[in-house]
């Protein structure tokens, strides 16, 4: 079977898998960003209990395997009465895992905003929340955008694991096609290229655009 025949026969399934992968990536990324922001801010809280909760979250999700976390959320939580649909379990696992890494980016970026900015905001008598929201976070955002770009590519690639709980993503489709046709090079080769194309031509340009957009808002462009 030529590659052209392979694509015309299985293209539709590969496309639907790609779509699932992209949707999963977007939802997991939204979750990761939100939870990274919350956990990152919690880790800077003056309250020790709040700090500890965030630290435990980061330790667990950064310190253990994403695959095992996925299995826990999908296979073990039902034993405690929390049954999640497989797609949901997939984006929650990926989102929580990458969110743990992201929270460190948030924390680091906030800490690297010049101390003088805090002081100037305090001298204007701004409240703690106002200082963070209006002065510090916008500047931290610009600092953390480049490493977030890396993390987003990492996140896309991590979504491949959801194939193991039978979410019909790109990897799952490639595996299925492979096991019925034994055309391993074509199935996995196509998947490989699609992951690369999505990362290189969708995620990276969007992040660059966001960086430029933010830099313009800072008057730097």
């Amino acid at each position, binding site marked *: 079977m030529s590659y052209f025949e392979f694509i015309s026969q299985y293209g539709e399934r590969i496309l639907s898998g790609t779509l699932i992968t992209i949707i999963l990536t977007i939802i997991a990324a939204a979750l990761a960003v939100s939870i990274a922001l919350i956990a990152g801010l919690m880790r800077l809280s003056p309250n020790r209990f709040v700090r500890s909760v965030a630290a435990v979250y980061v330790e667990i999700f950064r310190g253990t395997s994403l695959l095992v976390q996925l299995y826990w959320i999908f296979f073990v939580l039902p034993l405690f009465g929390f049954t999640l649909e497989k797609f949901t379990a997939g984006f929650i696992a990926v989102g929580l895992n990458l969110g743990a890494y992201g929270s460190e980016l948030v924390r680091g970026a906030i800490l690297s905003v010049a101390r003088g*900015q805090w002081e100037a905001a*305090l001298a204007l*008598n701004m*409240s703690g929340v*106002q200082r963070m929201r209006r002065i510090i976070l916008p500047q931290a955002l610009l600092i953390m955008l480049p490493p977030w770009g890396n993390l987003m590519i990492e996140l896309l690639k991590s979504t491949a694991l959801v194939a193991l709980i039978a979410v019909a993503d790109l990897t799952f489709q490639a595996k299925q096609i492979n096991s019925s046709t034994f055309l391993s090079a074509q199935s996995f080769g196509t998947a490989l290229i699609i992951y690369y194309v999505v990362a290189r031509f969708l995620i990276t340009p969007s992040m660059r655009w966001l960086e430029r957009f933010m830099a313009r808002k800072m*008057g730097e462009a």
Partner: protein
Amino acid sequence: MTDETHASFPLRLEGANVPMVSFRKVTKRYGSLVVLDSLDLDVAEGEMVTIIGPSGSGKTTVLRTLMTLDSINDGVIYVDGEPLTHMSDGTKLVPANQRHLRKMRSKIGMCFQHFHLFPHMTALENCMEGPVNVLGLSKKEARERSEELLRMVGMADKRDQHPSRLSGGQQQRVAIARALAMRPKVMLFDEVTSALDPEVIGEVTGVIKKLVSEHNLTMLMVTHQMGFARQISDRVSFFYKGRIEEQGTPDELFGDPKKERTQQFLSAVREAV
């Protein structure tokens, strides 16, 4: 601070001629290093006091504790008659809560050596930030107030520029407008010309001179510009090891310093120039 020391301080300063700023036996320590050593300092309403002294003498700490950027270990600071980092619980002074701190901070404005303008906002937005978000002014009112102040500091034509597009002297003038937009009673200038190129120092000192001559603001300034201090101050305080070693009118202090340390410092400064 112990309860006995609390008890010896009035809950508020009353009567005629209450100083706008009053340090009463204020001590500030960093670990074992004493930065302010039982400091007493009064500044009258409308007075311009310049603090000079060798590095590490506690000059900047006076301003930082007044702005509540640094805490104090002992003593009480009064601003406009009211304790700054303390409040009355009816019978004695206790550490201030956030609400009291914010009320007191509204009386004070500060300009920094390195300006600290908000880089993600234009000059105008920098000035409007406090009035809109802290004072609750409408955008229109805040804009009018800010534009007027930017005109006053000669920065009206650069109001839509971000700080990264402005020179040091321009940034500092915007920073002065930003602080004034909050209508403070006390303005603090912390070495505002130290980070500037020599040729633009004049544009910043010019603005401060204008403030002194046209407004009844109470001002405290830390500076190394002795000529400038001599020109505009009502009083100059020479700090040494966290205390006032000597103070007086500019002519007294610069023209006829009494203490040996003051003489040494001034002659060392003159040699450097």
